[in-house]
């Protein structure tokens, strides 16, 4: 058997803040239908109306909620009821940036959020494994005119290949186009550390940039294990608003 890339999941932590005051981090999050899953695949290139649909006609009972910023930078929330294969337009909001895309129950098909009409896919909730939501990190973060602001948030990489062992796993920051992010992994697997708010440095964590690979402690990950990864976002004073990304990777080898 082989460990597939699709069996290595980036998942959220239990405490996923939307402000600078809330508890941050904790154990890996398990939601209503499974887990949250980091990353919005493609942010709208320009502010756009969105629509959502399933590839299974039976998905008619669940509500989809999208939270994001409009073109004025205001946070907006819109909820619609799924209608199976028919696209449902989130017509009340023009989204410039999507912060989260969630569903309130189990579902039967792959759920796609895309630009309306039938445009670029923004994110998908896959049929397997079921995900409660997809989110971005550092939601509602902002810079200050006079002083740098540094925030910390956490996610977990989970190894989910049943019966397999990921050997020599490494976590790397692959890309950080705006040079605002560094990452530090926890000292042990299945970590539950949290911080009182995202402006607090997590103790004992060393943050490195994309030139340094970090190996998972013990050198092995078996099915169900996860490794906590803290991210540091450093916004310089007067940093202008921008839509940026960073890319993290868990890699390793498997034994045939």
């Amino acid at each position, binding site marked *: 058997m082989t460990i597939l890339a699709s069996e290595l999941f980036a998942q959220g932590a239990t405490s996923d803040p939307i402000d600078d005051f809330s508890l941050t981090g904790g154990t890996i999050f398990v939601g209503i239908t499974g887990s949250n899953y980091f990353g919005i695949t493609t942010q709208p290139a320009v502010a756009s109306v969105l629509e959502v649909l399933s590839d299974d006609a039976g998905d008619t009972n669940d509500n989809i909620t999208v939270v994001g910023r409009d073109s004025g930078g205001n946070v907006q929330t819109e909820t619609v009821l799924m209608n199976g294969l028919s696209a449902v337009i989130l017509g009340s909001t023009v989204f410039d940036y999507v912060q989260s895309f969630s569903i309130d129950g189990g579902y039967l098909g792959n759920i796609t959020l895309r630009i309306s009409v039938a445009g670029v896919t923004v994110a998908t909730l896959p049929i397997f494994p079921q995900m409660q939501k997809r989110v971005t990190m550092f939601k509602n973060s902002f810079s200050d005119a006079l002083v740098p602001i540094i925030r910390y948030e956490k996610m977990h990489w989970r190894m989910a290949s049943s019966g397999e062992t990921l050997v020599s796993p490494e976590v*790397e920051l*692959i*890309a950080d*186009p705006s040079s605002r992010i*560094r990452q*530090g*992994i926890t*000292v*042990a697997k299945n970590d539950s550390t949290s911080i009182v708010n995202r402006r607090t*440095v997590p*103790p*004992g*964590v*060393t*943050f*490195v*940039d*994309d*030139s*340094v*690979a*970090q*190996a*998972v*402690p013990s050198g092995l990950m078996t099915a169900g294990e996860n490794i906590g990864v803290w991210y*540091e976002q450093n916004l310089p004073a007067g940093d202008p608003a921008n839509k940026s*990304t960073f*890319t993290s*990777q868990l*890699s390793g080898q498997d034994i045939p």
Partner: protein
Amino acid sequence: MTSPISIIKAVPRFCKGQPMNPKTFDQAKRDMVRGLIPLSADKALRIPCGYDFNKTILSYPFDGADHNVICPRCGIETSFKSPIF
């Protein structure tokens, strides 16, 4: 009680090395983000270094400060934030 040094050493850290071609490396990174080439290319496009970066971390105080450093083996510029305990 676990010492700060053993906590740092519990996570092996290695320098990934200089880009083979600095002129094309940034474009390759952008292509990785866009899904045009696999993320594993990040290593394939570098001259492997493997320097034990924990040696660098342990040479600074554990004070939460930022440091811009140069890998003593391959010369790549990098940065890190020292841990606090």
